[in-house]
């Protein structure tokens, strides 16, 4: 009888443990099947993105060097500043950032909807059209067929190819969302689905070709700022909201705050673009409304900053080990910085100095590189080994990539912020000859070129590593490629 009793107690426990193991196994199998469904499209987008990253950053360094050597490559129209700079902007925005973001979205949507990727074949067509569009548009810009509107320089046929590719990409994501196996949408999914609604509308409206004069300028500023608002920022925030809690192993600090942040973001961000035209020939109320909305962006930015910081707090030691976490946390910190800077920059008295100076270029790079690209790098360090089934070959190379990228962007932003401000003050002084203003900026422009070159170096290292993973070459690892091995109490490593 005592023996029987003992078995009665033991059996349910054993059964419970067994069920727990089964559930874990089932979840792991599901996750592997989801990753399998997204593997080829995601890797296709990532590989294209890495290619455009190299091309775009090469154009960027060439653009910067032209400030140091104005006559360099000046003999041929193709390589003049007016063509190389838009080629840099468009290859980075539509090539690198968009395609890497698309890859991350494909993988994240399958995982967060707990559904295999639907209509996956559409992504092959989408990637082909998108890449042809970026290639044709870049060649057209270099050949002198730019439309002359910032971030809309691609001719209509190239823009149409990208738009068609985007619609195919969006159709697959929307169908995956429709077939989802979860009731509640995680906050990353809110950002992803909203961007699929917002960005096509923005792109189509901006490319209607029905604007002239001042209205065209207003549309251009509205488009430029909203490309960040409706596409690039949602990508970055979706990644940060997923990878920070996932890597740390701790739920986001306040889920409520996350959703408040999303709706405040949706409400305020799309009004911001017109603050670029302070002092321009537009109705004053229109510019003022934009400035107010820009300052109100403090609300969603605070929500994101507080949430991410309080999720990471007490876990900062993990930044010593995890490449993904380090890139994503740096990106998230840059988001807070660039957003507060943006709110400040929209104010009229601030713009009196900073507008039309190198300060703005530093701000733009803090956003697109410090925030978005760093999060995309972090996302790729997490996703690629899981899809390629091959770990990153060298922690040392990841370290080199991180430090060259982060030191490069730090030098770039600090130099242009200081140099741009001094340039603005000097330009506002009517007693200062223009050539003196130019001479004043020279050291800062050298720092800009060095910063850009550091970033390009990091990209070359990253691309080489990516190539090795795709080829399954290099040293074969059976443990995660961390910056360093954590102490047993700290990391909970298991291989």
């Amino acid at each position, binding site marked *: 009888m005592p023996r029987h009793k003992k078995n009665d107690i033991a059996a349910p426990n054993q059964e419970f443990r067994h069920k*727990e193991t089964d*559930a*874990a*196994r*089932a*979840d*792991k199998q*599901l*996750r*592997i099947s989801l990753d399998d469904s997204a593997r080829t499209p995601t890797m296709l987008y990532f590989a294209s993105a890495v290619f455009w990253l190299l091309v775009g950053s090469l154009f960027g360094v060439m653009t910067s060097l032209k400030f140091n050597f104005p006559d360099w490559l000046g003999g041929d129209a193709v390589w003049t500043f007016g063509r190389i700079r838009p080629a840099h902007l468009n290859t980075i925005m539509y090539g690198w950032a968009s395609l890497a973001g698309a890859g991350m979205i494909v993988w994240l949507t399958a995982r*967060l909807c707990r559904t295999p990727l639907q209509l996956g074949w559409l992504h092959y067509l989408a990637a082909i059209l998108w890449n042809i569009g970026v290639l044709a548009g870049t060649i057209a810009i270099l050949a002198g067929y730019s439309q002359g509107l910032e971030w809309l320089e691609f001719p209509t046929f190239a823009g149409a190819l990208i738009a068609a590719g985007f619609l195919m990409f969006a159709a697959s994501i929307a169908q995956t969302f429709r077939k989802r196996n*979860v*009731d*509640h*949408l*995680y*906050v990353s999914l809110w950002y992803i689905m*909203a961007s699929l*609604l917002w960005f096509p*509308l923005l792109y189509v*409206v901006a490319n*209607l070709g*029905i*604007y002239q004069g001042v*209205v065209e300028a207003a549309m251009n500023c509205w488009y430029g700022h909203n490309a960040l608002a409706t596409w690039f920022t949602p990508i970055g925030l979706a990644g940060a909201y*997923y990878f920070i*809690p*996932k*890597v740390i*192993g*701790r*739920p*986001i600090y306040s*889920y*409520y705050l*996350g*959703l408040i942040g999303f709706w405040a973001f*949706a409400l305020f961000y799309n009004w911001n673009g017109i603050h670029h035209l302070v002092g321009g020939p537009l109705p004053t109320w229109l510019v003022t409304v934009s400035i107010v909305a820009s300052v109100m962006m403090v609300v969603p930015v605070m929500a994101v900053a507080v949430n991410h910081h309080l999720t990471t707090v007490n876990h900062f030691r*993990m930044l010593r*080990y*995890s*490449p*993904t*976490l380090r890139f994503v946390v740096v990106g998230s910190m840059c988001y807070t910085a660039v957003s507060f800077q943006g709110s400040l920059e929209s104010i009229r008295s601030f713009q009196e100095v900073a507008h039309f100076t190198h300060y703005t270029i530093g701000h733009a790079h803090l956003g697109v590189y410090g925030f978005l690209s760093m999060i995309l790098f972090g996302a790729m360090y997490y996703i690629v*080994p*899981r899809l390629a*089934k*091959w770990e990153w070959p060298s922690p040392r190379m990841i370290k080199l990539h991180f430090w060259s990228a982060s030191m490069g962007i730090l030098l770039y932003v600090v130099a242009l912020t200081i140099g741009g401000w001094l340039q603005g003050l000097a330009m506002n002084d009517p007693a200062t000859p223009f050539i003196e203003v130019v001479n004043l900026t020279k050291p800062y422009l050298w720092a800009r070129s060095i910063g850009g070159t550091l970033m390009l170096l990091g990209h070359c290292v990253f691309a080489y590593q990516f190539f090795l993973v795709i080829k*399954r070459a290099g040293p*074969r*690892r*059976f*443990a*995660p*490629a*961390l910056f360093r091995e954590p102490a047993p109490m700290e*990391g*909970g*490593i298991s*291989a």
Partner: protein
Amino acid sequence: MTLPLAALIVIIIALVAGALALSGFIWAIRTKQFSIQHLNKGAYLVFDESEPVGQSQDMIFRPAAEKSNGKSHAAS
């Protein structure tokens, strides 16, 4: 006063966009996306039984069972 065609097109698109945003918000209310139950479990959606809360996911790289063939390398 006649409305320029460009303004008309943009206003129509803006109204469609606004309607879509409103319908998205109504859908969220109807499907109880903001209910206390949903919000309480929302933050845990990135975790599951095999990648639970409390376990750092970047610290794990599981070598494949079939190490010997040199081809498969399962990281999940």
